[in-house]
């Protein structure tokens, strides 16, 4: 499955894109969570491969990562569990660079592709360090999504949008992942700046916690990533169906605009 083609097609049909996140290996039923998310109207799903030192993540995702690691999650184990899980929407792996580097660029890219993952987000690989991983990913037909931040200057933003594949991830706020009371004003400003320099899907993440916030954040952008709010539910013991319900509520709100 091609990530960008899939998202473009849906966006061009007038749909706001919804990309929920799940931490791989968090509990026995995490792949059921994937299915529930897809059934509830996700357009793509981010699968977190936990890392011991997730500097861009807030307390919720860090707790989820930590718990998954304590349960024995490994990169190879998580990707292995994805083999044969076809939920009908593209899967995008999210992890930190040391996991990629330790596994080996080519081996990691191949293992994503072999297990049905078509995209990758590696937040600590910025433009300057992208070449090695970018080449390996491209050779394995894995699309590498780059992150843009509110402080990214214009010329850098254009380059970043040009080199990003699948979609471009707009980090809504200067800060880490986690639920917030309101959508930062910087989210709309950044999305607008990105839309002016790219026609790739622009998806906003960080701090999108409620259906109303999803609608607000998607006003200037093509869609939203929702992570911490869903992982909070999962950490608190929610069943896959309940995660599905939360995603469905986001879907309804985005569709109603």
């Amino acid at each position: 499955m091609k990530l960008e083609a899939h998202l473009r097609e849906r966006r061009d049909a007038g749909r706001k894109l919804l990309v929920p996140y799940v931490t791989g290996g968090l509990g026995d039923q995490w792949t059921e969570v994937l299915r529930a998310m897809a059934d509830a109207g996700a357009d793509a799903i981010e699968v977190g491969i936990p890392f011991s030192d997730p500097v861009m993540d807030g307390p919720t995702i860090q707790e989820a990562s930590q718990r998954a690691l304590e349960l024995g999650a490994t990169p190879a184990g998580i990707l292995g569990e994805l083999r044969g899980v076809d939920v009908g929407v593209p899967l995008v792996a999210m992890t930190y660079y040391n996991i990629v580097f330790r596994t080996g660029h080519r081996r990691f890219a191949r293992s994503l592709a072999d297990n049905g993952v078509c995209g990758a987000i590696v937040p600590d690989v910025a433009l300057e360090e992208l070449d090695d991983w970018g080449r390996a990913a491209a050779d394995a037909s894995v699309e590498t999504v780059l992150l843009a931040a509110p402080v990214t200057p214009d010329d850098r933003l254009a380059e970043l949008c040009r080199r990003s594949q699948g979609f471009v991830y707009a980090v809504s706020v200067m800060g880490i992942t986690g639920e917030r009371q309101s959508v930062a004003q910087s989210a709309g400003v950044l999305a607008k700046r990105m839309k002016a320099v790219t026609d790739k899907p622009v998806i906003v993440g960080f701090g999108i916690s409620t259906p109303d916030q999803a609608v607000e954040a998607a006003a200037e952008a093509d869609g939203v990533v929702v992570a911490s709010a869903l992982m909070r539910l999962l950490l608190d013991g929610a069943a896959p169906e309940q995660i599905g319900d939360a995603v469905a509520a986001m879907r309804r709100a985005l569709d109603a605009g």
Partner: protein
Amino acid sequence: MGTPAADGRFGEFGGRFMPESLVPACLELEAAFTEAWADDAFRDEYARLLRDYGGRPTPVTECTRLSERLGVRVLLKREDLTHTGSHTINNVIGQALLTKRMGKTRVVAETGAGQHGVATATACAMFGLECVVYMGEVDIERQALNVFRMNLLGAEVRPASSGSRTLKDAINEALRDWVATVETTHYCLGSVMGPHPYPWMVRELQRVVGEEAREQCRAVLDGADPDYVVACVGGGSNAAGTFAGFVDTNAKLIGVEPEGGAAIGHGVPGVVHGSKSFLLQDEHGQVLEAHSISAGLDYPGVGPEHAHLSSIGRARYVAAGDAEVLDALQLLARTEGIIPALESAHAVAWVIRAAGTDELPAGSTVMVTLSGRGDKDAEQVMKVLDART
């Protein structure tokens, strides 16, 4: 030990593996430091502060009784005699000056043993900068006195409660703070690690240790350089500063890591906290917890320039264990009247172990950087020694 490549690489190590939110800040810092370091007015002000406030130059002390006992001639570069009691003050005075120059008003820092935190709090007090120091919960417990000192100096100490609750987690928290506050905040990183330009910048700010020592050693050794130059290595800032003064001599450079946190000794190449270096990690790439009796050294990584110096064979990295470190601390105290920090005692421990062997032949001259004084560790050492008897 010159300027790293444009991408911040020392050979294959270093780089800038940072989230996009922090890349502009790293670029801004690189430009600001490059400009400042080429500016005589900045260099003069930095030198003046090191002298009038920091207490430089620190002396080189010849250890006659220890030398006699070991059969090698031991000189100590006395960073323990600086204001705040360790080499860390050299780095933070430079970074605080730079913070002012960049127009920022707030500083965040991480600390393990507390030395870098105390030094940062000190410099911030002097410069009128707001200061927040992240410290692992475990270290807060081990270093209560330093926490009190930081508070007394007006800094806020925030506990890092994730992961191993030590230095690496304090770094994670400081980075998270920096992402959210980068417009007004400078991250005063404490060692030669992190994304470019930190490993280079911190080494340059510590270069004064090695340059002074080299001149002082020549005065003591009739114009000769020491045969061996030894310094302890956690992140590796005092060693990087020391080695910078001797890298173009014939001195053999020895970095001493803690046995339980020997990133070069037991690690493999990896990437954490912004640079590629040697790293203690499992086969899946998860960072392992380091252990050392010294809170300042239990970091699972090491500065990238040390990884480079090791890989090209210019410096050699060895390890010292907790027990021999405690013995070394006591021996130095009793023979020379100097109580070293537990960090520095690692370097002394290697000298004691190696003296008279092929590693450090009898009659050699050896210069050891005593990176800090042992007051901060006194309570902890007392407990450990009490438990031993």
